[in-house]
C-alpha cells in the first residue's frame, strides 16, 4: 500500500486547532492592540476573547494530560514491567492512563518499552507517524534511551529516529519509575506542550494520508510570508476583527 506523506500540509476539509505558536502570535497582536489602536469596549471584548482562548487551551491540556491513551506496544523486557503498571499495585488508572489502545490511531502516547533493533526501528517510526497529534513518546529503559548494556550493532536508541519526550532509566525500570515518568509527562503537557522537540526531529505533521486523498497545491506549499516571532508586528487589524 502506498502511503503519501504530506509535509507540510493539513488534511483537506479539516480545520486545524490553533497551535501554541498561533496563540503566542495572537497574544502578541493583542498586546500591540493595546498600544492605542483599540480602545474602550472593543479592547475589552478583544482581550476577553483572547483570554478565553488561552484558558481553553489550558483546560484542554489539563484534560489531555489526565486521559492519556497509550498504544499497546511491547518490545522486550520492559513491556512486562509496562504491563504491571496497569496491575493492581501501581494502578496507573488513578491517572487516567490505563486505557491501552491497540490501534495507533486511537492512541496519543507511545511507550517504547524495550530494545529497538535496526529491523524494528522503521516499524516503530511508522506506528508513531500513524498516531494523531497531539502525541508524546516515552523511552522506557536503558536500551531505547542509550542502547543500554548491549551497545552493539543491532540496537538503535530511540532518539535517533523519533522525538522522545521522557526518558525513564533502568534495566528494566521499576513500575514506580515508569509511573514517575508518566507523571512528569503529565506535568509537561499541562505546563507547556511544545518544547520544540518535534520541530527538531522533523516530526511535525507527518501523519499519513490514505491513498486517494490528494492535497491541493495551496495546502502543500508553505506560506510565502512566514510569521516571524522576533520581528515587531505591524498593527494592521484585518477586516474580520472590525477595528
Amino acid at each position: 500500500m502506498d502511503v503519501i506523506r504530506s509535509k507540510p500540509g493539513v488534511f483537506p476539509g479539516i480545520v486545524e486547532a490553533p497551535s501554541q505558536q498561533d496563540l503566542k502570535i495572537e497574544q502578541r497582536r493583542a498586546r500591540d492592540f493595546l498600544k492605542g489602536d483599540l480602545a474602550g469596549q472593543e479592547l475589552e471584548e478583544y482581550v476577553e476573547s483572547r483570554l478565553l482562548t488561552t484558558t481553553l487551551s489550558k483546560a484542554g491540556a489539563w484534560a489531555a494530560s489526565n486521559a492519556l491513551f497509550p498504544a499497546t506496544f511491547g518490545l522486550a523486557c520492559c513491556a512486562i514491567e509496562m504491563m504491571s503498571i496497569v496491575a493492581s499495585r501501581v494502578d496507573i488508572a488513578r491517572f487516567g492512563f490505563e486505557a491501552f489502545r491497540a490501534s495507533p490511531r486511537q492512541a496519543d502516547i507511545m511507550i517504547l518499552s524495550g530494545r529497538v533493533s535496526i529491523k524494528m526501528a522503521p516499524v516503530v517510526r511508522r506506528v508513531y507517524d500513524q498516531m494523531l497529534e497531539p502525541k508524546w513518546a516515552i523511552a522506557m529503559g536503558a536500551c531505547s534511551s542509550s542502547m543500554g548494556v548491549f551497545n552493539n550493532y543491532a540496537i538503535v536508541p530511540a532518539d535517533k529516529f523519533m522525538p522522545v519526550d521522557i526518558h525513564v532509566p533502568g534495566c528494566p525500570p521499576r513500575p514506580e519509575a515508569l509511573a514517575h515518568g508518566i507523571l512528569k509527562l503529565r506535568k509537561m503537557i499541562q505546563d507547556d506542550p511544545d518544547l520544540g522537540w518535534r520541530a527538531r526531529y522533523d516530526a511535525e505533521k507527518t501523519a499519513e494520508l490514505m491513498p486517494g486523498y490528494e492535497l491541493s497545491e495551496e495546502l502543500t506549499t508553505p506560506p510565502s510570508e512566514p510569521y516571524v516571532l522576533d520581528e515587531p508586528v505591524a498593527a494592521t487589524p484585518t477586516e474580520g476583527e472590525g477595528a
Partner: protein
Amino acid sequence: MATTERSAYRQMEDSITMDARLERFGTVDGGEHELLTVNLGPHHPATHGVLRLLVTLQGEVVIDLRPIIGYVHTGIEKTAEQKSYWKAIPVVERMDYLAYMFNATAYCGAVESLLDLEVPKRGQYLRVIHMELNRIMSHLVWLGTSALDLGAMSMFWFCFRERERILDLFEQSTGQRMHTRYIQVGGVMEDIPRGFEEKLREFIAIMPKRVGQYRDMLYKNEIALQRLKGICPLDEESLLALGVTGPLLRAAGNPWDLRKADPYCSYEDFDFKIPVGTEGDNWDRLAVRLAEMEQSVRIIEQALDGLPEGPHITEDRKIALPPRHELGTSMEALIHHFKLVTEGFRVPPGEHYYPIESPRGELGCFVRADGSSKPARVHMRDPSFVNLQATAPMTRGTYIADLIATLAMLDPVLGGIDR
C-alpha cells in the same frame, strides 16, 4: 533504495511478499474462493512481542502461516563474546526475558562444566528455589496475557498480583526485580537475607490456593472451554519431529522433563511429579502449566526445608570474588579481587552444551572456550525458537481466532527467539 547495494539478507527480506500464496495452493473450489494473505504484526497486541505472521486465509480459515522473526534481534550472542565470562551473565540473562534465572543457570552451568567446578550444595538449592520461583512467575505472566487474548481481563489482575509477590522476593534476595544476575559461576551471588525464608513460606502457603482460584475461574468458564478444548491439537510424534519440548510436548502426553530425565542442580533430591496431558490441545497446554505451578511450589518447599548449611558459592578464589571483609586484611584476597575484576578468570579450551528445563522447554547453552578470559562462542538453544515451528502445523485448517488462542498457549518469548 536502489542506489546502495543491498545485502543478501535484505534481498531475502524483500522476497517476503504480501500476495495471496496461490502459486503453492492453487485455486480453491475451482476458483470460487479467493485466498487472502493477512499480515499480523510485528506490532500486534496479541502476538506476545514483536512476532510477525503472514497468514494465508480462505475466508476465516487459516490455510498457511509463515512466522517472520528478528524484530528484537539484539546481538546478545556476539556481545557475550566480547565480555569476560562473568561479565557476560547480564547480557545472557536478557535473552528470554521471562526466564532470566534459567538463562543464567544454563550459561553458568556450561562454564562450570568447562572449568570442572563443583557448586556447593547450598548454592544449588538456592538456584533451585530461585529458578522455580521464576518458573511460577513466567507461567503467571503467560496465564495473564493469554487470558487477555481470550478476552478475560480479570485473570490478568490476579496473575500480576502473585507476580508482584515473587518479584518482591527476588528484590529481597538479589536487589533487582527482573534480570537479577543472581546466578554466578560457581554458585549464587549472595546468601538469602534474613526474613526471606518467612516471606517465601508465606508465599508457598498461599500459592496453591491461588492456582485453585485460577482453576475455578477458567475451568467452568464457558468461553474458555469453547476457545481451548479440542482446539489445535498436535500429536506427540509431530511435536518430537519438530523438536518441540516443554509444556507443549508434555501436554501431548510425553513426560519429557530434563529435571527428571537429566537432573542438574540437585533436582534428583526433590520429589515432584511431571504433569502430562492426553489430547495435546490448547486446554491440555493450559492445564499442564497450571499443574506445573503447583509442582514448583512443592519443589520450593522441599528445597527450603532441606536447605543445607555451608557456602553459597564455590570457595575457589580464582573463580569467585572473595568476601568483602577479607579485602581489608588479606593481600591474597585483594590480588584475587583485582585479577577477577580486571581480567576475569580463564577457562581451559573446550566446548560444552548444558541443557536445563526452562518454563518453555529445553534451554541449552553452548559455550566454546579458547583458553582466554572471554568465551569464543556462546549459543543458546532457545525453546521458544524451536517451539515456534509448531505454529503452522498446529493451526492449519483452523479459524483465525483459534490461531490467536494457540499462539497464546504456545507462549513464545520473542527476546529468546531473536536474541
